[in-house]
Each structure stands twice: as C-alpha cells, then as structure tokens.
C-alpha cells in the first residue's frame, strides 16, 4: 500500500520536502501507515508475553503471506526457489510454535498492593481478590 501510494504521489526531492507531508494525505499511504502502526502494536503486545525467539519467526509468516498475495491476487510468477523459501519459513514457524512461548527465567512476584494502586486498579479488588490475604 505504501509503495502503491508513493508511486501515485510521485517523486519527492530533497528540495521539496513538503511533498512528504502531501504524500501522507494520500489514502493508500495513510492506510499503509496505520497498518504499520497496528503491526508495531501487535508486535509489542506479543513481546510482552512471549520470547523474542518465539515472536520473530512467527512475524516472518508475513513474507509467506506477501508471496501468496503476489501469486493469487496480483498474479505474479512465484519461482520454485521462492516456493522452497515459503516451505522453509513455514517449517521453521511450525518448529518454534510446537514449543513453549516463554522460557526466560525471570519469575516476577505478583504486583504488590502499592503497585496495583499506582496502576489505577481499584483497591477493593485487591482486598477482595484474596491474593494479598
């Protein structure tokens, strides 16, 4: 989408940087940026509960999806070597997905009452939850 939008927006020279701002107003570029932000948010979310060596191979499924979209939506030619690449990535993701998501040794204690209060959680919940008692 970004590529399509930037091709519509035309060349941008260093002397006319306002072209970049105008390019953002292009709907394709705007949707591309929103999708990139959505990717980043999802990536951050995944990293908060899973290992980096678990999340990274999973994100590489994007390459596979891209190749499949190129083949079936854009009717581009996908060479046998690229099909092999798709198979290798899928196999790699399958390997890592079969194992545990989190292996790091950091076992944090449950948050204290002060921490929960700082987070804005209602204190009644902490008291009635039975965790602290």
């Amino acid at each position: 989408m970004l590529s399509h939008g930037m091709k519509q927006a035309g060349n941008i020279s260093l002397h006319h940087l306002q072209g970049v701002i105008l390019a953002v107003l292009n709907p394709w570029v705007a949707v591309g940026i929103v999708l990139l932000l959505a990717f980043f948010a999802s990536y951050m979310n995944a990293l908060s509960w899973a290992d980096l060596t678990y999340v990274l191979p999973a994100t590489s499924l994007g390459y596979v999806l891209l190749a499949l979209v190129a083949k079936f939506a854009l009717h581009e030619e996908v060479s046998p070597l690229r099909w092999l690449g798709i198979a290798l990535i899928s196999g790699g993701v399958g390997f890592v997905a079969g194992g545990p998501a989190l292996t790091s040794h950091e076992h944090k204690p449950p948050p204290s009452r002060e921490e929960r209060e700082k987070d804005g959680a209602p204190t009644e919940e902490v008291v009635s939850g039975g965790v602290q008692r």
Partner: protein
Amino acid sequence: MKSAYTWGGILVIVFASVVGDILLARAMKQVGDVHALLCRAGVWTVVARILSNSNFFLGVGAMAVAFFSLLFALSWGDVSLVAPAAASLTFIGNAFAARIFLHEKVDRRRWIAAVLVAAGVALLAG
C-alpha cells in the same frame, strides 16, 4: 571497495536491528503482559508504562538507525543482496543475542527454526 561498503552496511543493519529487537523485547518484559495490564488498569496506564520505559526509546532509536543504514546500504549494493542478507543474518543474530542478554532458552528446536526461517527469507527476498 563497493562490496566492502555494502557488507559494512549490512553488518550495521544487522547489529542495529538486533540491538533494537533486544531492547524492545526487554522493555516489553519490564512493562509486563499488556493484555492483563489492559484489563486491570486501562489503556492509558499501558501507554504511560511503555512511554516511561527508557529501553523502549533506545530500541526505537536502534530500529531507526537500522532503517537509515538500510537506505545507505541500498545505495551501495543491490537490493537482491542487501535485503535477504540483512534479514536472515538478523534472525541468527537475534537467536544468539536473546540467549545471552534475555536469558531465553534457545533449545535445538529454536535453533532449527531460526536457521530454517533465515534460509527461507534469503530465498524469498533474494
């Protein structure tokens, strides 16, 4: 000489990407499980926690360095070399760095996955 510049650029991309990924992963582990935090304390607490984490900003900075290094490297070398080499070396580098700095248990299963994905990305992007 141009090839040396290209490979130098690729190494800078890989180094900056690995540093960025490690810092972002560490930042999000410090923030904690986003979904649980979201249910417990709301979206603004999550945003505030992430934005008050210095590792997050260092990680984003390293990612920006990686992006601009990619642009430089692309001006020196072919995209068919720079893109797959940088992407696949980043996967391998991340497996090493996650083991050392994040103390993740990178077992045989994960090594095989890293090598398979790196090879696959090299074939797809090449």
